[in-house]
């Protein structure tokens, strides 16, 4: 006799057995508990000042984290990425301690807690996020390109399935960085997953402001080379399926993908935001979409019983409370340490980023020139030769920029290099400087030596954000990450001037924290400083003055493949007692000429950050008079910094005012007659020097 089988539990047929649902639940509950305790306890107690809860976004992010398991995987998100980071294994005490700005953790209290970095040596990393929305995209594309590079050029097996994921909200799809990275990823078919969580608001601004109709997935539907998925980030099964599909698509090297998941933002933008711009009905509708009840329904009783869920919840609460207690007992970093780790400090290696962190040490070098022949060569030739040699001996070095491939660069610096080293190592980029520098940042974090070229100094303007953020990586991650790149920048006047091609404005980088700045006046110095930059462990702006590239005065014999100059050491090219002239770049030659026969010290600084204070100060101490000459315009040019330092340190030795001779506060004029009237000439320098001498 057949007996009817009593069915006690409903049949669950659509729960993915390959997803570790228990961990997903645990992580989502952890994230919610942190959100809750921050809101109700830590913020009122003023222990956390910048607070961003992630309710609504949490489940989908955690599901994504489950798919990331390759040591070369990297993610870069934004201020609402905590659930993803928790899913990747970030330590709870670090997460909370960093939110409380305590010692240690992500940034030793130097950055806000939700700006994560995760220097995971053995698993997927989180690249240092920035506060600025949109900055996460091009570095992620750079990391993806580095993955390909390591596979193809450095022949690393382990790089074959790794991917880079950039996490952004619906607001971020309007930013420069998003479009730069999209172009890079699709034109170069890079393993990038663009994960867009669409909660319909960027703080208070609706998503219809960021892309027409508010749906970036729909708008990119015909974008060549981009696979798109669009779904409900609050449905456990749909979300986990889409996430897995997208990640595997990219892992299989089918090209980049964009996954848009719709989620509700179940709290304000941050603790301070009371969402008065949302109607009550809308807020209610958002809560109806809360993924957590849906997750519970999905896993209970299929994976967990009610009791198990409840137990998990209280376990999580205990664990989080305990972590809070531990984090709260962490000290605050000592104020006297706040200025450390701006640059690489001897003996303190970063965990991730740059070749040095992976064990690279430079070959022996010398600061004595050793020319093989007396023939003088142009600075442009010498730079090319130096790049070539360093690329030969170090396969991490890669050059890129606009027109530097087959054309060899508009200044001819990279002529022939793509032919020699191939398309993977020497390549043209899209016309987007944010992307050029941004990807370089990601490539550097992935252990390469990126050498991007900005075609003309002025065109670095769009890259300013990436440049500034690159410089502060080491400091704000407490030396856990570094991003050493060598940013080559031709600039200055040539046979004529103009506001777009002839700018110098090197002082902007002098003021950008974390950047070294080289400005050679001649071939020999260019070789030495470039080589040091390529072998170094800090980001460098390497300025190539267009007039000096093939000026006869600047020519010197090639000083040899081992010639490397330290930064912060100037060169005295004339000796005297009566006055000190300080210059760099194209002005050095003019100062040398103007000072002939006048018994003066003439100093070529060669590098501005750092600059040789010792040589300048001791010279001015001796002579009592100083004239600084630079091409950059006058107000707050780098000459002002030098003059202030001199007045501060050797005041009692001054016998004349510390003077500067510069271009006036104007852009570079195009007509050569106007240009020559504006840039300090030999005569003008000579006259000004005479005035000082007669003071």
């Amino acid at each position: 006799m057949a007996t009817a089988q009593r069915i006690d539990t409903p049949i669950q047929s659509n729960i993915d057995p390959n997803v570790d649902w228990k961990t997903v639940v645990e992580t989502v509950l952890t994230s919610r508990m942190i959100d809750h305790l921050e809101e109700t306890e830590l913020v009122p107690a003023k222990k956390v000042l910048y607070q961003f809860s992630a309710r609504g976004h949490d489940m989908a992010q955690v599901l994504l984290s489950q798919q990331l398991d390759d040591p070369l995987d990297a993610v870069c998100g934004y201020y609402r990425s905590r659930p993803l980071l928790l899913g990747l294994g970030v330590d709870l005490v670090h997460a909370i301690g960093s939110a409380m700005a305590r010692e240690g953790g992500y940034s030793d209290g130097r950055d806000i807690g939700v700006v994560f970095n995760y220097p995971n040596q053995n698993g997927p990393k989180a690249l240092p996020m920035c506060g600025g929305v949109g900055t996460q995209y091009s570095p992620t594309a750079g990391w993806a390109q580095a993955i390909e590079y390591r596979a193809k050029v450095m022949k690393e097996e382990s790089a074959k399935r790794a991917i880079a994921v950039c996490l952004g909200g619906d607001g971020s799809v309007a930013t420069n960085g998003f479009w730069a990275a999209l172009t890079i990823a699709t034109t170069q078919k890079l393993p990038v997953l663009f994960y867009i969580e669409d909660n319909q608001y960027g703080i208070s601004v609706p998503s219809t402001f960021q892309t027409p109709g508010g749906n970036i997935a729909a708008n990119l539907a015909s974008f060549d080379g981009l696979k798109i998925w669009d779904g409900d980030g609050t449905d456990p099964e749909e979300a986990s399926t889409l996430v897995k599909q997208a990640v595997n698509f990219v892992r299989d090297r089918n090209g980049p993908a964009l996954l848009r998941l719709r989620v509700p933002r179940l709290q304000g933008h941050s603790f301070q935001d009371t969402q008065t711009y949302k109607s009550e009905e809308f807020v209610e509708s958002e809560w109806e979409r809360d993924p957590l009840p849906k997750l519970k329904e999905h896993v209970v009783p299929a994976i967990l019983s009610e009791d198990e869920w409840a137990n998990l919840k209280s376990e999580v609460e205990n664990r989080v409370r305990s972590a809070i207690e531990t984090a709260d007992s962490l000290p605050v970093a000592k104020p006297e340490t706040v200025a450390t780790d701006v640059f690489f400090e001897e003996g303190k290696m970063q965990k991730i980023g740059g070749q040095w962190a992976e064990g690279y040490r430079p070959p022996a070098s010398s600061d004595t020139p050793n020319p093989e022949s007396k023939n003088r060569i142009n600075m442009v030739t010498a730079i090319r030769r130096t790049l070539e040699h360093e690329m030969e001996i170090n396969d991490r070095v890669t050059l890129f920029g606009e027109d530097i491939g087959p054309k060899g660069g508009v200044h001819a610096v990279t002529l022939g290099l793509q032919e020699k080293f191939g398309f993977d190592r020497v390549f043209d980029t899209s016309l987007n400087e944010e992307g050029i520098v941004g990807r370089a940042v990601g490539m550097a974090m992935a252990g390469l030596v990126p050498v991007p070229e900005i075609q003309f100094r002025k065109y670095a303007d769009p890259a300013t954000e990436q440049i500034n953020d690159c410089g502060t990586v080491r400091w704000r991650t407490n030396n856990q990450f570094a991003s050493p790149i060598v940013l080559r920048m031709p600039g200055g006047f040539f046979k004529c001037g103009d506001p777009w091609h002839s700018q110098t404005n090197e002082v902007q980088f002098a003021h950008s924290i974390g950047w070294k700045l080289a400005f050679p006046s001649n071939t020999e110095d260019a070789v030495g400083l470039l080589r040091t930059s390529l072998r170094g462990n800090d980001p460098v702006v390497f300025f190539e003055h267009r007039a000096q590239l093939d000026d006869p005065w600047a020519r010197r014999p090639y000083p040899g493949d081992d010639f490397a100059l330290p930064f912060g050491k100037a060169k005295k090219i004339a000796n005297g007692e009566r006055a000190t002239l300080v210059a760099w770049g194209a002005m050095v030659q003019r100062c040398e000429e103007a000072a002939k026969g006048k018994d003066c010290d003439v100093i070529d600084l060669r590098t501005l950050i750092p600059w040789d204070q010792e040589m300048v100060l001791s010279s001015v101490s001796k002579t009592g008079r100083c004239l600084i000459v630079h091409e950059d315009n006058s107000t707050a040019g780098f000459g002002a910094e030098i003059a202030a330092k001199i007045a501060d340190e050797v005041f009692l030795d001054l016998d004349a005012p510390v003077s500067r001779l510069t271009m006036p506060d104007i852009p570079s004029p195009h007509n050569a007659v106007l240009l020559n009237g504006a840039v300090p000439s030999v005569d003008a320098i000579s006259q000004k020097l005479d005035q000082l001498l007669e003071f």
Partner: protein
Amino acid sequence: MSDLIDILVPIEQEGTTGVVRNWFVSVGDQVAEGDPLVELETDKVAVEVPAPQSGILKEISLQSDAEAPPGALLGKLDTLAPEDAAQPVEAASEPVKTAAPMPSTPVDSQSGMEHRHSPAVRRILAEAGTSGDAIIGTGKNGRITKADALAFVKTLRSKPAPLAPTPAAHAPVSGTSTKVPHTPMRRSIASHMSQSLSTAPHVTAVFEADFSAIIKHRNAHKNALKQQGVNLTFTAYFLAAAVEAMKVAPQINSRWHDDFIEMFGDVNIGVGTALGDDGLIVPVVKKAQSLSLRGIAEQLQDLTARARDRKLKPQDTQGGTFTISNHGVSGSLVATPIIINQPQSAILGIGKLEKRVSVIEVDGHDTIQIRPKAFVSLSIDHRVIDGHQTNSWLTRFVEVIENWPAE
């Protein structure tokens, strides 16, 4: 009499209902109108509520953490009647006193000389323990350069000890010559005199003055002034008379520029003061035009005393517009002084006072009288001044001296 007014939560505010965050004052405190009383916090901003009038905080109605809806009563303020009002605490209203004296004008507008020392020079002089008064500057506008200071300090070190003339200097001219090294003062005088003559074409006019009137006046007043600590010298009269003479010939009180003549506003008269073999120094009586005879006498007394004690400061010898040289005190009847302090335009020399036989007409008859007289000579820079102004000046000068009122 007191007048209680309400302190209310502002009606217009940014963000949601505010909460009282922090009272800045307590009940009983005095506040001025506009002083911040309490801070309210909304979800958007922190807002301060200022005192609507001056007075004393009498009551706090909403404490910290209390909700503060728009228009709610925060507290009460007792505004005081004027006679009851205590002086509100004043913020410091005096102009900030600079710790150090204001830097002097770039270049001495009177003499065109740069007297200020650069840091390097100051340091060198301080280390050598010497002032720069005696250094001739070779820098712009006569500025003492570091090189000048170093050279000077070197001479100090190599200078032989005695300043007094050596016996050899007085020896009759015979046998071996001796070398007397230059003192800084000697160098200074040599340079000033040469430069003055080579710059300005000098002409001297000579008048004679009868001192009877000023002798009489002085005799009548000197004792009284002495008792008040003021030494009344003849020089004081010369300065006073010179001021009067400037009024008829102001060009005498001027200086030459390439494109114009600068007529000075003040009459600052330097008086040549001998320092024996140490040379000559010229302290300046400033703004003589605004001084009385007594005032001039007081200034002169102070300056000469300090000169003799070597305690003059740089500003005591700077800014002169005219100079008087009492050369007659040491015997000379007439002299043709050189304008010592360029860029002045004239210098007055006073010769020796003697009893002289003079022919004076009395009631139409010539008589022979014995009168106290001295020659007074005015040397001028002929670029600036001609004979006409020179003689007008001297005429008036002599007139004032000779007609000094008895009182």
